[in-house]
């Protein structure tokens, strides 16, 4: 068994109370195929954190592909399993979503980032998270002095609940599958919209005030943030479903004048971004955003690293997807 192959290396982070398993994707211009010695990369690294209980490869192994893509551009990428998740030590908890909502992983993720900075001589870390992972990434960014940016895919700013009442789930099924149901659903949306208009810009009762405070803390400093959105249920393009609070609009305003937030809507994606079109769109947005915010002056793309990989060893998919699948892991299903 080997610890390193091609552009990948298995790493363990310790000194965190628990030991975390992770995968390091070497930047394209650095020797690979062997475990990296302590080094001074002097560039930004991208650190992926788990989305809810997903292992570090993420849905459809999309995190593997994004990390590979980021490494090809010259940025080291790290995917770690947080405590109790994936292959890392620690007990997993049945109230995982509550822990995420309250920023329970912030400290350990920030400490992990610090270890990576020291070990690889990084100039800082960009936290990357999807859905519940985006919430953890945002909390970690606020807790970490090494944070230089955030990549947030489908973040949410309300207190997500693990379970929806059975009646509500059945109503949703009915609304999707029958003409009467659709009419009722549209009427419900209009009533919510009216109610929302009466409320004005006030936050919904289930807004995550603690998370919004962290957002304001980091975004108002001008920290570069890339925020990627996928089409939601009955959403109108980038805008939320009729009657739903527009959190994205709210948080951009909340960031103030110094904000450096790029909001991108990926129409071809599903919530997980694991479908081919969604995955590739994310790659492109990240490539442009990293180059714009963290340009590499000492990076020249070479082919040396590619030679270490066997034929067909990359995880790139071929063939076009037929449809964008829904993400089964989402804490926000039917929000």
């Amino acid at each position, binding site marked *: 068994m080997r*610890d390193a192959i091609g552009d990948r290396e298995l*790493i363990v982070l310790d000194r965190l109370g628990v030991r975390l398993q992770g995968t390091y994707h070497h930047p394209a211009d650095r020797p690979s195929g062997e475990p990296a010695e302590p080094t001074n990369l002097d560039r930004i690294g991208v650190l992926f954190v788990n989305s809810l209980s997903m292992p570090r490869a993420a849905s459809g192994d999309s995190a593997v592909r994004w990390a590979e893509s980021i490494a090809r551009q010259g940025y080291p990428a790290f995917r770690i399993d947080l405590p109790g998740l994936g292959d890392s030590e620690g007990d997993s908890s049945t109230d995982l979503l509550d822990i995420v909502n309250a920023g329970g992983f912030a400290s350990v993720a920030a400490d992990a980032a610090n270890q990576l900075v020291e070990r690889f001589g990084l100039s800082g870390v960009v936290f990357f998270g999807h859905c519940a992972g985006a919430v953890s990434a945002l909390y970690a960014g606020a807790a970490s002095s090494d944070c230089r940016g955030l990549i947030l895919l489908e973040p949410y700013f309300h207190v997500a609940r693990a379970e929806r009442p059975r009646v509500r789930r059945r109503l949703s099924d009915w609304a999707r599958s029958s003409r009467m149901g*659709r009419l009722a659903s549209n009427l419900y949306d209009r009533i919510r919209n009216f109610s929302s208009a009466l409320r004005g810009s006030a936050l919904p009762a289930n807004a995550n005030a603690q998370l919004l405070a962290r957002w304001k803390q980091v975004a108002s400093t001008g920290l570069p943030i890339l925020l990627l959105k996928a089409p939601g249920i009955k959403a109108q393009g980038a805008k939320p479903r009729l009657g739903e609070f527009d959190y994205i609009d709210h948080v951009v305003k909340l960031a103030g004048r110094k904000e450096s937030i790029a909001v991108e809507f990926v129409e071809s994606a599903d919530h997980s971004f694991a479908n081919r079109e969604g995955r590739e769109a994310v790659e492109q947005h990240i490539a442009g955003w990293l180059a714009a915010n963290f340009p590499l002056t000492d990076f020249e793309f070479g082919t040396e690293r590619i030679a270490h990989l066997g034929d067909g060893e990359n995880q*790139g998919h*071929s063939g076009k997807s037929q449809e964008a*699948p829904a993400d*089964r892991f989402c804490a926000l299903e039917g929000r």
Partner: protein
Amino acid sequence: MENHLPEGRSQQHAGYFPVTGAHLYTVLHEVRDPVARVLLVGPFASERHNAYLPWVRWARYLAAENIEVLRYDYRGIGESTGAFEQMTFADWSQDVRLLYAWLADRAPHVPLLLHGVGVGAILAGRAFDEGLGDGLLLWSPPANANQALRATLMRWVGLEQIFKFGRDQKSASDYIRELEQGSSLEVDGYSWSAGLWRDSMRFTLPAALASEESAALAYKRPVRIVKLTSDAAPLAKGGRVGFDDLKDFSWLFAPNRDWIVAVTSQSSRGIAYA
């Protein structure tokens, strides 16, 4: 940084195992003086992600009982390399044989069992049918791989329909028709080729593994077949994926551990292990 995690009496080692054109991500739960070894052949494709936490906990549970465990990701899935859509059931069968050989080579020699779930149960069962393994534990083995793929497809379609209304909704049979007509289909981020779909129908559980009784007659080696109910979700279909994987599985683990311990102690008495 050493790439291992201590876990009580055992150590967890992650590593890459070379196979043709790819590397398999493996995790060895190493114990000092094991009473037995088990090769875990896990959930397939997107089912891997659903069931990852209970699968890891099962491996650790066994390791804590002095049973050394090797688990891995299939070629082209998870942390393993390779392009999923280029893989075949023959490739995944080869993975089992290669890892079995590696595990069988470890000292000291002790009984070595195969354990599979879902598609992994077919892979483990076929390897056992070829003569590998001192015992076999199957959780919810489908009669063929197509049954497992259909179950995954049904769940995916159900979730996909959450985002679709009315005529935009496609049924499972619409997608199956497309696969049968030669189109590929991306399910949970994995591109299922028409060839994979076709081959899955021919990739069957050996007939003798239809029941424990027929297996006992055919193999003269211990076989346990467990049909998991929805209580075992996400290791079985049903339940609330993404949340059920965090619950307590000791009710499932304990009797299966007991069976492994019992058959390996019998094997150790009946077989001369060097």
